[in-house]
């Protein structure tokens, strides 16, 4: 059964319509790659999936996964640049969604944060200041935070934007590894070639509303393209 289903989704900002009647579904364990030029609405689609923004029409159906079990790695923002926060503080804040009204983190959550940092190979950075890390290290911290928030599905918005070859490669490796362990991945990427290497499905958004949005398996996409 599909884990995430988008039914007749239409969305945009005011009169600026970005997508109309979009239909697609993601099964547990899928690796969906979302591509499309800048401004085609990829980030907006993700905000809708996460419930941060309401669609104009249509709906999202989640099966066997709660709304707060979607991990999220946001597109980088200026805001976080001058923020005084240690790596550990950022990573464990991913557990906050499970806390409810409980004020402090319990042992399980602390262990989970450690495990996430080990997985992303940042355990030795725990006490370091987030804003003083390299771009690649910062992205791994945010990925660890997303991992704390969810063991079932992670949504990533341009995780390798601005990273050098080495760090991008490491990010892709970690993401692939998580997918291998059964995690559903939805990833926005610019680097079509590299992203297609590991993905199972492709969604291509377009800025031109007359052009059809493509959704299908990777094989269908490759055949369709050539």
């Amino acid at each position, binding site marked *: 059964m599909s884990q995430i289903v988008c039914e007749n989704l239409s969305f945009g900002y005011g009169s600026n319509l970005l997508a109309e009647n979009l239909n697609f579904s993601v099964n547990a364990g899928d690796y969906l790659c979302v591509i499309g030029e800048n401004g085609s609405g990829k980030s907006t689609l993700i*905000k809708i999936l*996460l419930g941060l923004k309401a669609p104009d029409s249509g709906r999202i159906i989640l099966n066997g996964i709660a709304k707060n079990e979607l991990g999220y790695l*946001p597109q980088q923002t200026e805001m976080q640049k001058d923020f*005084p*926060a*240690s790596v550990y*503080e950022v990573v464990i804040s991913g557990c906050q*969604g499970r806390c409810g009204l409980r*004020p402090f983190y319990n042992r399980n959550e602390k262990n989970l944060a450690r495990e996430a940092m080990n997985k992303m190979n940042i355990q030795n950075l725990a006490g370091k*200041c987030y804003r003083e890390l390299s771009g690649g290290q910062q992205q791994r911290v945010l990925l660890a935070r997303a991992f704390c928030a969810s063991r079932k599905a992670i949504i990533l918005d341009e995780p390798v934007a601005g990273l050098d070859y080495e760090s991008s490669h490491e990010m892709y490796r970690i993401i692939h590894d998580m997918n291998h362990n059964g995690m559903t991945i939805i990833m926005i990427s610019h680097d079509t070639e590299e992203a297609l290497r590991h993905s199972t499905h492709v969604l291509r958004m377009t800025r031109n509303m007359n052009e059809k949005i493509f959704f299908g398996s990777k094989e269908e996409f490759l055949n369709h393209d050539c």
Partner: protein
Amino acid sequence: MGVIIAVCSSLLGGTLVLRRFSFIGDGLSHVAFGAMSVAAVMNLTGNMTFVLIITIICAVLLLRTGKNSGIKGDAAVAMISVSSLAFGYMIMNIFSASSNLSGDVCSTLFGSTSILTLTVNEVYLSVGLSLAVVITFVFFYNKIFAVTFDEDFARASGVNAGACNLLVAVITAAVIVLSMNLVGSLLISALIIFPALSAMRVFRSFLSVTLCSVILSVICAATGIIISVLAGTPVGSTIVTADAAAFIIFYIGGKFIS
């Protein structure tokens, strides 16, 4: 008493600065001034309670308008704060029974030695309110951090960010009403913001910044009060001067470290 208020006022500094919310604190302090004048004129007995309620309502309203309406957040704040300042002064002018009007206005704006002349009830209320602020902050510390660092992520992972923002607004309002007694409404922003700015120059994690601002704020308040008693300077401005001096020291210290 001054020290307890110093603790409260510095707690939220980091959050407000980092979320570019410092202007809300500033706006609210003007609202508190307006409310204070009204209360003074009407000779309300529950002076502080009245001011507190008005300020909390305005805090909630400001947060709302900043988000939804067409008027931009800071424009809305400017509008509300300037009008309540003008309104407050006008009311005091028209209705005040006091013969020493400019003295009254001056002490509301810059604080007075009134910290020593509070009624017993007001002291109880202040202490109670301070404790409530500290306890609430500690209780919601991790949530406030999560929402401050990345509101979208916090929301997506199931934190009730709206409620958290509301909480921050209400605590800010409470802190402002408390600090009115200590430094007066014009200088409140300094009391809230300076310790956090100083701490951020030197420390690198949210917890250490928060702790450092509290300690710094307490030291500055204590120093300020002692100096003002010894030298006969106004309490509020002496404390803020101490905060400013601390900022300069931390600024230079920060340069040396990095």
